[in-house]
């Protein structure tokens, strides 16, 4: 009897191993896609592989990575946050106007304010049961209007850039500090997801919200936290952008919305929720940045650049998504 159980257990383990290998392949796809794309661009323009050039690429990817990192948590919950870019713009305005008064404390203050803004959206979403798409769509217009009002519809220059200098320097004259900030953000969020119940809960809600609810998970709280995290990283992304433009502007980050969502999806996080990871967003942001910057750098004509971008982004997603997790593609 015991033997039979052991054999059955062994067989089960072997059976589990086979999908695991496929899982590794699927997991490695985003990285592979990134490397292939980099190689292809390097063939067109070998200078791209110079250390300085690569680090600059990484630097360019940093704000996008930070912006997409928090939004990834919302996507893992099965929702979507369309407000991140507008919130980052608002953050830039707030930061630039608060620096004179708060100096170094302005950045944490702005991040906190954005976290609150995100949490408010989360609260509206869970309390009134409005789809996150609609809430954050409304949030998008609202925050950008607030940014316009707060800035008087103008660029807000930063009289003194020292409080944000840390976010835009080169450590040792080489490594961009923003890259480290982005990596730290991703690692911190990944650790939060790994070592606290939050990660388990977020995934459970994304995979099967009814089951999560009946297991007694604090659904509302988890979602509000997810939106707050998304808001906080949007605020941090706004700070990174301020650091590199030395000013805040009400539309500064608006154009980063679709790239941020693309980074999440290209990385292989399922837009339907549950399946995905933060490191995927890191890789996704790399791919999107390569496409955004690399194509024009490699000398592709602007008109064809757009066409190529369209083709490649669909191709990248086609390569990276894990179809075994999607029964129905929407």
């Amino acid at each position, binding site marked *: 009897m015991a033997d039979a159980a052991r054999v059955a257990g062994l067989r089960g383990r072997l059976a589990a191993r086979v999908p695991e290998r496929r899982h590794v392949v699927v997991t490695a796809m985003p990285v592979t896609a990134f490397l292939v794309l980099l190689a292809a661009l390097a063939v067109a323009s070998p200078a791209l592989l110079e250390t300085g050039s690569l680090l600059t690429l990484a630097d360019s990817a940093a704000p996008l990575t930070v912006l997409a990192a928090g939004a990834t948590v919302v996507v893992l919950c099965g929702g979507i946050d369309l407000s991140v870019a507008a919130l980052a713009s608002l953050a830039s305005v707030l930061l630039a106007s608060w620096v004179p008064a708060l100096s170094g404390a302005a950045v944490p203050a702005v991040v906190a304010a954005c976290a609150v803004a995100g949490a408010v959206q989360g609260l509206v979403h869970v309390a009134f049961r409005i789809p996150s798409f609609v809430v954050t*769509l409304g949030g998008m217009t609202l925050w950008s209007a607030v940014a316009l009002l707060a800035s008087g519809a103008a660029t807000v220059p930063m009289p003194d850039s020292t409080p944000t200098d840390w976010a835009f320097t080169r450590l040792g004259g080489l490594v961009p500090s923003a890259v480290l900030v982005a990596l730290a953000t991703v690692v911190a969020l990944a650790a939060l997801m790994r070592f606290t119940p939050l990660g388990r809960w977020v995934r459970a809600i994304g995979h099967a919200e009814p089951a999560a609810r009946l297991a007694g998970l604090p659904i509302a709280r988890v979602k509000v936290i997810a939106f707050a995290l998304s808001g906080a990283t949007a605020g941090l992304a706004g700070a990174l952008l301020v650091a590199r433009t030395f000013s805040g502007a009400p539309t500064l980050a608006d154009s980063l919305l679709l790239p941020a969502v693309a980074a999440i999806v290209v990385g292989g996080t399922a837009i339907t929720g549950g399946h995905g990871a933060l490191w995927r967003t890191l890789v996704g942001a790399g791919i999107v940045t390569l496409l955004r910057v690399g194509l024009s750098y490699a000398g592709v004509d602007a008109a064809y650049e*757009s066409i190529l971008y369209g083709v490649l982004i669909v191709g990248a997603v086609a390569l990276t998504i894990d179809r075994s997790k999607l029964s129905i593609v929407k």
Partner: protein
Amino acid sequence: MTADRLQTYGPTAALLALAAVFAVLSPQFRTLGNLQNLLDAGAVLAVVTIGATYVLLLGCIDLSAAGVMGACALAVSLLVANSRTALDLGPLGVLLVVALGAAFGCLSGALSVGLKVPSFMTTLGVSAIGLGVATVLFAGVQPAVSDPWLLQWASGRWLGFTRVTYLAAAVVVLAWLVQRHTRLGRYATAIGGGEDILRLSGIQVGRYKVGAFTVAGACYGLAAAMVTAQLGSGIVQAGAGLSFAAITAAVVGGTQLAGGRGGIAHSMVGVLILTVLANGLVLIGVSPYVQRAVQGVIVVVAVGATLWPLRHRLEVVK
């Protein structure tokens, strides 16, 4: 039951309430001229929203309007009598452009179905491709349309309304009939309700999905022709921002993002809500800064109010 009814009639009630508020606050809002202007202003959004609605019914999402319309606007302005090419195809040109739009839509659908890539990404990709095509066609010189037939769409009036308005109305009716009485329309609705069930019934779901995307693309093509008629020349930005506007309109009207619920009639109420809002806020003199914020809040409130009685039933909201 009341909740069901509220979901059906809630947006209409919201529209009437908005219109009533504006009518009280602004005497100009009440004029016939403004009604004509309203319908005229909403015409393009209506046609785009019809396209988006077909895709939303599937439970998919279509963000390709900006790119597809850009390409189609340039194409139509180059195909009819214009300042750059010697072509003068007239109505045939418009037909060709509708076909071009349909081809783009078909591409989005086929990529989504064939590669199993979420429609969110394929349509985004196709939008970029469309913008690229538009830029290539643009080639640095804006083509001005000189075809009087096309230009008359926007200028000539018949019983006070422009032809664009009539065209949009015709498309609305046609789209409603298609949704209600054709296999494509019914299956699109059914796919949103339960795609797996259709598969089990032996229906080739992929074909109808691609079909819905194609219809959406054709709508964008026609909308691009309408914009071009209104603007008198083909511009790349013809569809800028319309994807989000159309989805917002559809959702505000009661077409659900999850698919299967709502439809053309709902979406059109949403289009009217957005158009009345944009028009009314200008007429009552709200500051341009605040307009955007008010629109965002009203969209959330409208959807929230519609869903409020259902909140106990909606255990899962994504």
